[in-house]
């Protein structure tokens, strides 16, 4: 049995081994996980959370290395949680984000953790948010969450981050792509990376044109920044823009945002626990097997069967 309190104390002191073990325990959903989260929770909420998303190969990891270095120059400590996909066939994963962040690996003010999605959808792993929390509790000033190379609907990161940055590269598509739902809606800041390439200005103007016709949500108009993670061009400007967004959130948006998120999380936690407990209970019943057999025989369908199971369960609850 791991000594939970000792681990938590280690995390709060910024001890790397404790942070590493704690994230693993949460990631593996080991029995101590919930206890650890509840002990760390009061110490969280201090770090600024940056979400970085965008398609594979846009330069997210390289950009994070440059951003983190610039933040270090400004005296900030940095945590990074970088997510890569798990194979749906073997359950294995190749986590390659560190390759682009080599200069950070021995900096005592930086902690990087690679994480596999373990088949969680949405662009993050189930445990990503909690891993970010562990880094927050360990005293990092800024925690950067990098999603998997994202497609159009991997948008979960915007529920985790204070500022969401969508990283794009020139030549990925025209203004029609820019108008689509999903990814293109979640950016507080859009980065056109690889500005050293041709067509960077065209990409910037496509995105800007798209933003022109977007109905402003809550007073923040997303910004577009051109960067080259290779040369470092635009990195300082990007940090200025992040700061602008942070200041904007401070004017009152942040409290609202936080409350919204806490409620969403509460609903998620409740749904998970309710589902678990009710399903486990129903599975014990004879009716469960009977209905499963009926579905197999095409005598009923899953939805009607679920209705039946639930109706009975609700009736017994009422009687109590």
């Amino acid at each position, binding site marked *: *049995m*791991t000594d939970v309190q000792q681990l938590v104390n280690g995390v709060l002191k910024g001890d*790397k*081994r404790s*942070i*590493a*073990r704690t*994230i*693993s325990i949460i*990631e*593996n*959903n*080991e029995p101590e996980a919930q206890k650890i989260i509840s002990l760390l929770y009061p110490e969280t909420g201090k770090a600024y959370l940056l979400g970085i998303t965008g398609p594979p190969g846009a330069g997210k990891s390289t950009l994070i290395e440059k951003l983190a270095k610039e933040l270090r120059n400004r005296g900030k400590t940095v945590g990074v949680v970088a997510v890569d996909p*798990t*194979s749906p066939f*073997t*359950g*294995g*994963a*190749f*986590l*390659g984000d*560190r*390759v*682009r962040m*080599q200069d950070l*690996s*021995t900096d005592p003010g930086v*902690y*990087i*953790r*690679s994480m*596999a999605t*373990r088949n969680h959808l949405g662009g993050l792993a189930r445990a990503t948010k909690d891993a970010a929390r562990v880094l927050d509790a360990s005293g990092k000033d800024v925690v950067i969450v990098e999603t998997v190379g994202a497609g159009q609907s991997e948008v979960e990161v915007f529920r985790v981050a204070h500022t969401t940055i969508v990283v794009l590269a020139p030549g990925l598509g025209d203004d029609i792509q820019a108008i689509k739902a999903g990814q293109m809606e979640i950016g507080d800041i859009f980065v056109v990376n690889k500005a050293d390439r041709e067509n960077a200005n065209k990409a910037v103007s496509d995105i800007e044109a798209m933003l022109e016709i977007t109905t402003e949500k809550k007073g923040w108009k997303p910004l577009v920044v051109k960067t080259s993670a290779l040369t470092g061009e635009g990195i300082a400007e990007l940090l200025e823009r992040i700061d602008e967004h942070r200041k904007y959130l401070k004017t009152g948006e942040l409290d609202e945002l936080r409350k919204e998120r806490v409620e969403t999380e509460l609903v998620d936690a409740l749904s998970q626990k309710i589902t678990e407990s009710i399903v486990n209970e129903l599975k014990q019943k004879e009716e469960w097997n009977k209905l499963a057999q009926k579905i197999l025989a095409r005598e009923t369908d899953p939805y009607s069967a679920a209705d039946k199971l639930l109706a009975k369960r609700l009736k017994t609850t009422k009687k109590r």
Partner: protein
Amino acid sequence: MSKKEKGRKIRVVIAKPGLDSHDRGAKVVARALRDAGMEVIYTGLRQTPEQIVETALQEDVDVIGLSILSGAHMTLFPRIMELLKKKGLKDVVVFAGGIIPEEDVPGLKKIGIKEVFGPGTPTSTLVNFVKENAHKR
């Protein structure tokens, strides 16, 4: 705590210490371990012992695989083993591969390298080795 609990995955760092830039072999090994259901963290080329150990620490890995073709293993590996000890990572299993002369192997095992695999080792041998040793942690 049993490491074989549900949800527990073997985590491995595959690292290229030193100055040689040939990582075909390292990538083949990384891919084989990935296909065996493990989570493989690849460091990229030209890693210092400090970078490798720091990565193993932050990523909470069970196993480190070192790939080296430059001939500097007798200098770099002892440094890595020393740093692992210093950082409290004595329980991490280390194996090596690449171009390592037969006569160097006993010396490397003496400093704690669990196994040395030469060119032509079937990937299934590696996979079995990692699976057998990772959970002894």
